[in-house]
């Protein structure tokens, strides 16, 4: 019987050790550049190089209007907008598509590992929307979640491979840190207080990923020479892949074209 007790205590202490130690360090990252974070690869064990795959995401057809968000019950958020806020599902300008996650799906040497960079990636909740909406992190890289709204947000990750979480930040200025331990593209994030709030995070074992900017451009740098399958992912339009071969120091272009949903 005493052994049983002891077991319970050890169990408790053990799990505490595994799950509890998440510091509260403030984010020192730059919000704008987070999508490209991870390329620095300090002391990476896996191979890197100086090849680059870049390109532009084109959009054809008519983009559906982004739905209006009724924030009338959240004055703290609504006051941050001068025009009625919309849910930016389609970031389209001049036939270019933003918020497309582009990453190396395969082609890296088997067994190559890339340690997580110490710089965290930051996601900000501001005006009851996520900034950025689509981004990538490396496995075990810290994600700093920040609340800029003086209202409750909960951040619920609903992964299918990783362990999910569901945490809350009841007031402005709060930050929390979380990470994912397995590769998964994409892990959806949502806020249940504001049902319209969605974000997606691509968790990868390597630093070779990017998110297209509002001008549709993206760039994956520091690749070793090789042949890669590149995948582009959009929240509404699905995925596309193409194969690209780059030699050392080369820059190759890989453009993608998504077309609007059929009416």
């Amino acid at each position, binding site marked *: 019987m005493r052994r049983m007790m002891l077991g319970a205590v050890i169990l408790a202490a053990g799990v505490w050790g595994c799950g509890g130690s998440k510091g509260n360090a403030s984010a020192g990252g730059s919000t704008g550049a987070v999508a490209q974070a991870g390329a620095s690869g300090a002391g990476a064990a896996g191979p890197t190089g100086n090849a680059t795959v870049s390109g532009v995401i084109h959009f054809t057809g008519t983009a559906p209007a982004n739905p209006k968000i009724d924030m009338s*019950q959240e004055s703290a958020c609504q006051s941050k907008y001068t025009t009625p806020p919309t849910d930016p599902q389609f970031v389209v300008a001049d036939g270019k598509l933003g918020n497309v996650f582009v990453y190396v799906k395969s082609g890296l040497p088997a067994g190559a590992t890339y340690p997580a960079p110490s710089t965290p990636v930051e996601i900000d909740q501001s005006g009851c929307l996520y900034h950025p909406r689509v981004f990538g992190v490396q496995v075990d890289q810290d994600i700093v979640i920040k609340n800029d709204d003086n209202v409750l947000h909960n951040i619920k990750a609903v992964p299918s491979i990783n362990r999910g979480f569901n945490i809350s930040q009841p007031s402005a200025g709060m930050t929390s840190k979380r990470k994912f331990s397995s590769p998964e593209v994409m892990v959806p994030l949502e806020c*249940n207080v504001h049902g319209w709030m969605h974000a997606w995070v691509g968790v990868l074992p390597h630093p070779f990923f990017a998110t297209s900017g509002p001008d549709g451009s993206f760039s994956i740098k520091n690749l070793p020479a090789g042949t890669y399958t590149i995948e582009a992912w959009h929240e509404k339009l699905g995925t596309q892949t193409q194969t690209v071969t780059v030699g050392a120091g080369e820059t190759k272009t890989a453009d993608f074209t998504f077309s609007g949903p059929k009416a």
Partner: protein
Amino acid sequence: MGNFLSWMLPPGASTFVGDIDWIYYLILVVTGIAFVLVEVALIVFLVKYRKRPGRKATYVHGSTRAEIIWTSVTAVVVVVIGVLSAPAWDKIKGRNGVPPDAMPIEVHAKQFEWNITYPGADGKLGTTDDFTVRGQLHVPVDRPTVATLTSEDAIHSFFVPAFRIKQDAVPGMHIRVWFQPTKTGEYELGCAELCGLGHYRMRAVVTVHTQADYDRWVAQQAHSVAQR
């Protein structure tokens, strides 16, 4: 601090105020009398029969007559309270209590939002002019509204204190609850059943309009829906 020791119920704004509040005041008076009788007797006895030297307590083991009296009086009082309360329960929650002319709406609860679907101009749900609004309950005054409560995830509870109405929304069930507002104005709808970490913020604004204002609001909503 005005409500600190007030035994009055806050002002209400539905017909249920008339059905419910008097039951509260009746019970308040009955239990108030019982409370005062018991506590005063207790204190009087404690003072009067406190220990004094050379005195012995009276050696009695009880009184059958007293037992019969207080048992039957209590039983009669509680049964009367029950019998007087029963009609209001049937009217508010009974299966046949919903007035046939009530305006139907759908209240879909999810963590941590109230999504309310209105029947549009035709007054019927399930037609193309239905529209859904988050976090706002709009109803016309002096007309019964019947809400069909559903839930997407956990159990929530639809609670409008000013209407004296509360009903759980249970996933997998369609529960009808009705009410008839009597005063225009703004009130609050809250969730009364713990539903997770955002439970305390599962709030919506209730607006009671005159029928004309309500129709105008519906038209306006229909317009903005069409715009989307």
